[in-house]
């Protein structure tokens, strides 16, 4: 990977911040050198070290700033120029400053210069390594962060799409059969027809307008389910019996919309409607200390009615997972003596 300094945006703030690092490193080097007696004295080591370090740093950063190298080879070149240029200017400054301001004479220029060169190269390489790897780290952190954001956005998108899809699923069979019934009831039993139309309106309004609500009350969800089942009850007549058991205390409990509805519709469409003698549907809500449990039980055809059953349930399961993670459960069981029992469990 090439280090792209331009991505890290070199500006005055960046320059000054890293200058502080440079000064700290310089001081460290000076300490070290005087400690192991390579340098004659600490002040001398300090001056040389700082002169060199600051020059190398300034030249290198300026070149990176101006040239914005994209290729590794150019980066290396800039590092080399920085080191050589820094040593020469740094040495010039140090040899001017030392005798004049600190009265430290340069006794053996050749030896001192050689020392300085070694020092400069070591410092330059160290610094370049330090800065470049810091930059790399920052860059890869940014990449990871970007990936993370992308992933989260994707998940959110999936959740939204999933919800939208579920909501858009107003079954055309259901709609047109219901409309036919209403049309007929207008002649035969207008009052019943009116009730059915009211229920259909309620069902459609809720099904179509829930996009923006992330949570509703259990009572609201059950009202929609009741409207749906009232309609089905008129259509199926004696073939359908149903009950909804929602304890008083749980009526206002919040619940995500469209988790329960698909399960109820599944039970009707795949379990009870295709069964000649019809059957019974129970929706039972209960609560334990940690969780809320809703069971949808039918004594219809069960799973023999084919794999279509799976799609709706898989959708609900995915949504449950996206909403509650590991804490949301969906269980399928065979109901005795026949039919299916689907239960949802979510944290209370």
């Amino acid at each position, binding site marked *: 990977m090439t280090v792209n300094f331009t991505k890290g945006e070199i500006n005055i703030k960046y320059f000054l911040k890293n200058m502080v690092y440079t000064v700290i490193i310089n001081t460290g080097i000076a300490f070290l050198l005087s400690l192991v007696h390579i340098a004659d004295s600490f002040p001398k080591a300090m001056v040389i070290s700082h002169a060199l370090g600051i020059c190398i740093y300034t030249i290198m950063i300026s070149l990176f700033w101006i040239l914005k190298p994209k290729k590794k080879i150019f980066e290396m070149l800039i590092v080399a120029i920085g080191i050589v240029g820094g040593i020469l200017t740094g040495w010039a400054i140090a040899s001017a400053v030392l005798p004049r301001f600190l009265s430290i004479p340069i006794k053996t220029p050749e030896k001192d210069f050689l020392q300085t060169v070694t020092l400069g190269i070591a410092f330059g390489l160290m610094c370049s390594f330090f800065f470049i790897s810091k930059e790399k780290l920052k860059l890869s952190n940014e990449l990871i962060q970007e990936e993370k954001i992308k992933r989260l956005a994707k998940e959110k998108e999936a959740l939204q799409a999933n919800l939208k899809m579920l909501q858009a699923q107003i079954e055309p*069979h259901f709609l047109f059969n219901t409309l036919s019934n209403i049309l007929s009831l207008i002649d035969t039993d207008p009052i019943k027809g009116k009730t059915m139309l009211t229920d259909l309106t309620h069902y459609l309004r809720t099904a179509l307008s829930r996009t923006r609500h992330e949570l509703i009350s259990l009572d609201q969800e059950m009202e929609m389910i009741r409207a749906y089942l009232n309609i089905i009850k008129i259509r199926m007549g004696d073939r359908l019996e149903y009950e909804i058991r929602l304890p008083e205390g749980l009526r206002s409990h919040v619940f995500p919309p469209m988790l329960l509805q698909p399960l109820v519709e599944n039970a009707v469409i795949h379990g009870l409607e295709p069964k*000649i003698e019809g059957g019974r549907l129970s929706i039972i809500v209960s609560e334990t200390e940690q969780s809320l449990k809703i069971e949808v039980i039918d004594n219809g055809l069960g799973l023999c009615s*084919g*794999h*279509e059953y799976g799609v709706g349930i898989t959708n609900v*399961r995915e949504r449950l997972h996206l909403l509650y993670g590991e804490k949301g459960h969906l269980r399928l069981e065979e109901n005795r003596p026949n039919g299916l029992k689907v239960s949802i469990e979510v944290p209370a």
Partner: protein
Amino acid sequence: MNPKAILADDEKELRLYLRSLLAETWPELEICAEAANGREALEQVEAHHPQMVFLDIKMPGLSGLEVAKKIAKSCHIVFITAFDQYAVEAFDREAIDYLVKPVTKERLTQTIQRLKKQLAISSEPPAGVMEIVSRVLSGLKPQAQADFLHWIKVQQQNNIRLIPVDEVDYFQAEDKYTLVMTKAGESLIKTSIKELSQELDPNQFWQIHRAILVNVSKIEKVSRSLSGRGILKLKNRPELLTVSRPYLHLFKQM
């Protein structure tokens, strides 16, 4: 003699509605019976030998199309559908009579005109309807996929729990039993790996070992061990599975 017809729809109100519409548009038509499901429809046709049947497509027991396949040679059929796009397209193409719900008087009148014309020419129903219905039926059937196992039934205390195969990470043989490994935990079933490998979709589950069937969509990566066997890492699972040599070809690079 007045023509006879049978009405078959699982919804009582809709039979009533059609009956009243027919009384208005074709007063001479005698409705000799009604049927609330496919089987009843068949029985009534056999009992009354009507000239025509108004047949709802979606009925419990036998669907209207399945009934039609059996009676197309003995009487005229008018299909009724709320929304079966595929069937409707086919009916349009093949000029087969059908009504959409809610049935309107105009459409019903048109259909009756056609029926009357056909009956005037011959009391025999038009030929070829059975073949067309068979074609529609085979087009409607979910493809081969439906034949594979979709659910694993697991006995848990007194209940039988159903696990969708999509959720299974892998199956592993364990003595006489098979372990079903899912994210939620593991369960034991009596079906052997060999039986499972025949019942599951081979594109979804690969056998990677004498004792292991793995869900392909759960594989994260495959690496090679020093001994030349494959090592499988699954998504969200800590354990590694071994791919034995006879199955390594499954993971050859594409």
